[in-house]
């Protein structure tokens, strides 16, 4: 059970059934902590900047040249498309990065050392991935190859963290659709299209800007 409030995950309640020993694990967020979803926060900041770009002039301000509007639209579209991209493309993290992130310390009771969790947004879905690890013995004949960054790591990915080598044994992924994220994405697309239409309309006249009689 997860509760998402704005850009923060304020409650989480994870039940995990270990296939190994059929043992049921339960852990939840600590009461005093909440986890910021950086993607949503970034998207929000980008939108804020776009709004600021549009709002920071006088109410009765008159645009004087077309290029001025084009430049403004360019800046706004840049922010909007970045905001959208933040939601559509989750960060590719390496396993040590996940292991060292603050998320592991957020739970009570504390996560067992052989479990990693990661939250991210993919389009309109909030995703939770749980990695089950097992420690690689230093003497193993398996050749150790640390895995690179990825959104979702596959079982068998190896990494080194805190002088210990681990291998991912199981991956569990849970997704849930967040309706308002869906709306947000639609609005991003619509607003980008509107901006582009405005740009197109203005640039029709562009041939007259630097018109000089010869």
């Amino acid at each position: 059970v997860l509760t998402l409030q704005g850009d923060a995950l304020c409650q989480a309640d994870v039940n995990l059934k270990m296939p190994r020993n059929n043992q049921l694990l339960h852990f939840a967020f600590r009461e005093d902590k909440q986890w910021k979803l950086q993607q949503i926060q970034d998207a929000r900041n980008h939108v804020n900047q776009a709004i600021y770009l549009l709002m920071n002039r006088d109410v009765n301000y008159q645009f004087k040249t077309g290029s001025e509007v084009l430049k403004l639209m360019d800046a706004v579209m840049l922010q909007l498309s970045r905001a959208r991209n933040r939601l559509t493309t989750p960060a590719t993290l390496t396993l040590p990065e996940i292991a060292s992130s603050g998320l592991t310390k957020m739970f009570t009771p504390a996560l067992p050392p052989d479990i990693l969790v990661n939250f991210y947004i993919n389009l309109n879905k909030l995703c939770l991935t749980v990695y089950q690890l097992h420690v690689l013995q230093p003497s193993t004949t398996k050749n150790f190859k640390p895995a690179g960054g990825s959104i979702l790591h596959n079982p068998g990915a190896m990494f080194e963290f805190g002088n210990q080598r681990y291998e991912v044994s199981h991956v569990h992924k849970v997704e849930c659709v967040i309706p308002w994220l869906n709306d947000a994405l639609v609005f991003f697309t619509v607003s980008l299209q509107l901006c582009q239409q405005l740009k197109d309309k203005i640039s029709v006249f562009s041939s007259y800007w630097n018109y000089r009689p010869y």
Partner: protein
Amino acid sequence: MKVSVQAVAVWGKIAPSHSVTAIMITDDQQTIVTGSQEGQICLWDLSSELKISSKEILFGHTASVTCLAKAREFEKQPYVVSATENGCRSDSYYHCSFRMTGEGWLLCCGEYQDVLIIDAKTLGVLHTLSSSQYSDWINCMCIVHSVRIQEDSLVAVSVTGVLKVWDLSSSLNSIQERQSVCEKESKSLDCINCQAVRFCTYTERLLLVVSSTCWQVYDYCDFSLLCTEFCKSGQCFAGGEVLAAYRLIIWTEDGHSYIYQLLNRWAQMGNSHKKFSGLSKSIYPADGKVLKETVYPHLLCFTGVKENKSFPFVMGFMNERKEPFYKVLFSGEASGRITLWHVPDVPVSTFDGSPKEIPITATWTLQDNFDEHHSMSEGIIDHLCASKDGIKSAVVSSSVYIPSLDKLVCGCENGKIFVTLGLKTARARLLENISLLKDYLPYKVLNGHSSRVTCLLYPHDKSVRFDPSWLLSGGQDSVVICWDIFTGSIIQQFGLQSGPVTELLRFPENYRLKDHSIVCCVCSDHSVAILHLQKRVCLLHARKHLFPVKKIKFDPVENLLIVGCEDDSVYIWEIETGTLERHETGEIAKVILTSIEDSEYLVADALLPVSQESKRNKNAGYKHSSSYKHGMVSYSLTHTEKSSDKLTDTSCIQQPFTILPVKTKWNNANFHILLFDVEKLEELLLSSQLSGLKSSNSFHNSDTLERVKSTTEKRVLTLKRNKIAGSISPVDGQVDTVCSNQVCRDKNAARPLEESGGMKRHKKMKSSRKIRMQPSGNIDVTVTSDTAKLLLSCLLPWGVDKEIDNLCVRHLDILRLQCPVSFGLVSSENHLSLMLPGWKCTDCGVLEERAVINLFSKRVIDLSNKYLAAAEGQTGEKDGPENNVYGTKGLETVFFLFSRIALINRIINIPSAVTGKSRYYSMDFGSVSLLKLICCWSDQSIKIIEAMQAVLLAEVQMAMNTLRKTTICRDPLAIVENGNGKLWTLPKTEERDLQYIKNVSLLFSALKHDKSSNSANFQDVEDTPDRCVLEESESPGERHLKTITKYQVP
């Protein structure tokens, strides 16, 4: 190879647009650095009278520059770090701003959480300053260095208005040990959109926080609010700085600034406020409420701009208390104007208490410079248009250079297209006294477009299947015309009726259908048209795209056209039927695009981003001249530009002379860069000389023997050199055959190709090169020697010595320059810096009255004197043959001078190569001491240009001396030389330079991979004078001293 490329810029009448987005003044108040939205960085000279003139422009970034900061302690290394936003990858962090701490770190904040610590030298991310709660983007920050607390801390304000403080001094260790560093304090302020935060170092008490709607002063001890001032409606505060104790300067986004005095009520009532401000915290009430009543702002002075400004301003303030420096408020605006205000040390209001206006001290734009030096900023074909009287010269709106034909095609604003010969045009533009050349310069005017010519394409350049006579042009009138370049007639005209044509692209090679003569054109209504040139039909006009087209790809198997748009959506068109097959967005679109990229049918030019995309759109035409020159088709294919957004193009220039058209984004100003490949040119000269000698053997008497011997000897040397340097191109090893091969080609190229299938002929020639070598020699000689002469006359400092000038003009046939030229520098990563018109004004003001043009700096003369002195000691035995050489044949001398230039270029650019083969060079170069001198120069950060000019001047002087048969007493000098022994300084140099090269490449690769900080380091290595590298400054100091004194003896 590419390091040997010399660039000369031929500017147009209109300056490239430069919308200033970041501005800073270096600590010595001599240079202003601006970053622009276009991605270029401009260096401006600031004189002691606060006069501004532009100096250089650096091309490196492809995205807008967001921030500039010094990267080192200025006195030691005047490096500048610039940061850009880079929106190409969504998974990257976009922009950063840099501040400097004492440890050689850069602290960056931007569109990511918290603060990054970056190594100032390698630009690698060292660590992050993380926050334990409310982590968010950081809007602004400043370093608080307090003498009283004896601690450096970082104060930052996040986008949500949370103020955070990190201890820097105490967390030094944990940063080095890579432990996480959390903030010391965190407090939510009641302000959003914070623009700047500043600490008052005078009182060590006040903290100024400027947000867009108001500015506030806080007590640094407990962060309690002291006073707030809101801005006028319609204005937004953009930043502020502390002028002095209780005196603030705040500026707005529209270019106004206000100086406030924080009045202290206590001070007014009682004695001077000094008493209070000097006292420590204990005197003040701790709760700050009382203090709040004691401080209120009073407007003292203001500055403003007259004209309406719809563009946003970027402002900064430089507070210098040292005497020769000024307190300067500076601003740059989107139109490219820089404005300076000199703020008086003690700003006072007028007597009646109303605020006083501080007048503008200086203001300048790039265009001002271009207007002032209009002879320098004449476009490359302006003289052509001017010759046709009555018509004002047309502005070139697009151009393409065809290397195989040495033709420069320029499309103009008025719809005309000029076709001229590239080298001749350049000569006519740069040199004076060749009205002859100008008059007889053959050119054609193609009339067909009714309005501006927006793009040009010469398809034969890269793929043989196009007819060599075809030239395509697209115009604002939405018409694409296919011309016959030789006759100037219109072959076919396509009316697209969909807005201006923005881009013309060749279709990929492996299109397996029909006759392949197909081009693709992109129009400004985002439609893509496919034109079949032979059938003269428009195969497909894809009009459904909502967003600008970013990528065009092609699936030859299924005959599909894949169009990637700016919003990351993909449209798939069926070429046969002309129907839209699929429209995909998001992830699927990305997968489609990348999957095509992986397929083997991918062709480079299908990847070309549309001109709107690339900030500096390089027309593709000039690339791959190599296939003509060397017959190395495989080489050119492997080097097809994968990302043409960068300046990757110069890498594959195999021709000695190329014209590179450059287009800037916003205005249509277009300028050209002439690229000279010094190495190649030298090689060519050698071969031509040899063949020339062979053919004209009978005319020479006994001393030719000697000369032949010497030249062959040199040739052997170059051969050896080439074997080592030629690892890039396997054909290079056999200089002999290649050169002769080239000779044939040049002949071929010089003659206009009447019939089609020129490439086939090339191939035929290649097989029969041995036979054809001799007769074609002469043409090659003229072309290459003309190129060499052009470069030499660009390099020579005219007007320093009248006699030298005359000698050059009369004997060597090197013509005087019409005006100073703007040289450029191509770095190993193909980033480019160019001098701007007006660079010479500040540097050689003393010599101005002697009408000196083209002297790069006053230092050049000193250097050349040193060189002369060093050389004279050694050239005693060499003098004999040289004497004859100079006396008899101009071309020989040109070649000799040129080889020197090439050598210097090599020494300074690739010291490793020099040390490896220095014994060859030393024979070639006359003496080891000369070599040493040059190496020494490269240590002393003398610009290549300066060195080359100096050596050239000295050599010409020497030549003249021998001509005049003046005897110079050189005995004492020789003794000095011999007494000095063999101090081998090279390895050190090499090490240093190598390190530097590595460094630079590292930095630039950081840019490429857009990691956490997309930053390129514009270390103006060769560009910034007085560079002195840290590790050199201590130990080799004496060495420098030694060498300098050594050479200053005469």
